[in-house]
Every structure is written in C-alpha cells, then in structure tokens.
C-alpha cells in the first residue's frame, strides 16, 4: 500500500495503491496529510485507480481528510473508483462530501 503525491498548482493529487484497510490506512493518511499541510491546496484529489480493496477504514480516511480540508475550505475529489470501491463509497454517502467519480473498468 502506498500513496504517491503529485502537486500541480493548487491541486494535490494522491495516487493510492494496493489494499486499503485498517492496517494500511495510517501510513497513507500520514503521507496525504503532510502533502496537504505543506502545499495548502484548494483541491485534494484522491485517486483510487490502483486500489484493489477497500473497507470502512477507507471511508474513515476519506471522511477524516474531508474534515481537515473544511478548515481551509478546500474541495475534495474521489476518482478512479472500481465498482466494489464505488459501492462502499455510496453506502457511506461520500458523494455528499466530495465529487465521486467511477474509474475506467478496463484500466
């Protein structure tokens, strides 16, 4: 599990990969949070294209980042969600907090 960070102007994109569960969430959270603190983006994109599994620990991660971004008024986008990850996101109502995009299934 890892998070690769890309900064373009006021946008920070975190490319997450591997399995996102309670065991792996902490390290990913730290990587994202330090990039946000350092760059103060107006938009944070969490890209799930390379995430093969996610449970409610991933929802906790998204909700926690949303709460942090509220402090500066920055927006949150979730992109590249596979059908299974999209299903968990929808169950949690994430689309009310962030723009939620499906991924290309053939990626």
């Amino acid at each position, binding site marked *: 599990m890892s998070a690769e960070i890309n900064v373009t102007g006021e946008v920070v994109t975190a490319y997450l990969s591997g399995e996102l569960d309670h065991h792996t969430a902490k390290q990913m959270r730290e990587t994202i949070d330090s990039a946000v603190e350092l760059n103060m983006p107006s938009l944070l994109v969490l890209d799930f294209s390379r995430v093969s599994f996610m*449970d409610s620990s991933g929802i906790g991660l998204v909700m926690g980042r949303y709460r942090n971004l509220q402090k500066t008024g920055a927006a949150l986008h979730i992109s590249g969600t596979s059908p299974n990850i999209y299903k968990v996101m929808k169950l949690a109502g994430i689309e009310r907090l962030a723009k939620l995009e499906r991924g290309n299934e053939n990626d």
Partner: protein
Amino acid sequence: MKMIKNSFNMSLMSRSSNESFARATVAAFATQLDPTIEEISDIKTAVSEAVTNCIVHAYDNTLGKIYISAEILDNNTIKIKIRDKGKGIENVEKAMEPLFTTVGGERAGLGFAVMMSFMDSVKVRSALGKGTSIIMTKKISRRYSVNG
C-alpha cells in the same frame, strides 16, 4: 435442516497484518461456490470489517485470538463465523446502527452497515467481558456454465 457440505476453521492472533490474510483465506474458501467477482468482493469486505473490529475494539489493539470458521451449506450458501474473547459489546442494537462508533476520529462507524448490506444475514452475539461472535451468511447466485 441444512446439510454442511464443507467447512474449515482457524484461529489467528489479532495483528492488523492478519486482516488481509483473513479475508483472502475466507474468499479462497468461498470460490468453490463459483461466486461472481462482486460476490467475492462483498465477502472479503464483510470479513475485513468483522476481523478489524476484533483487533480495534474487542482487544483494543492488544494481542488476543480471533476464531474464524466457515461452512458451505447445501443451498449454495456460505456461513461465516468470526469470534473473539475480547471486551464485548454493551448495546449490540446501538452498535449496529450506521455511523455509531465508540472510537471516532478515523473510524466512520460503518463496519456493521457494510456487513449487513453486503451479506444476506448478520447475527451478533456478545457478552461484556467475554467476547463477541458474528455469524454472517450469503447465498451465492447459481450461474449456468456450458457444463451445466
């Protein structure tokens, strides 16, 4: 009376690195029912929720044992049991409500909601100071292959 066609059981220590091992093992056992990718993913996610709860809540990140067993029943159903000997749940009904969590912070309080939505049935038995057991079932759709 449903007949048990196959079964396995195992115990493992409540280390967070075992979360992926536990869900992958149950998913591998479930493949004999020829599930779809979505059904396998549902089972993996539900197992991950139950096992993570044992680690985070039951044993409060100390080391204890998690007992996992599964049965294949004759109606193309898998029955999964995940049990701990941890602190137990004070109010099960309340704990199962969406967004209810006793931890907060980085936990969403959606573990039980995921289990209930992704499985056909979820039964919780818990006793304070003794532990908790979760029994979940899911019927796997019968797909017709060329071989019938």
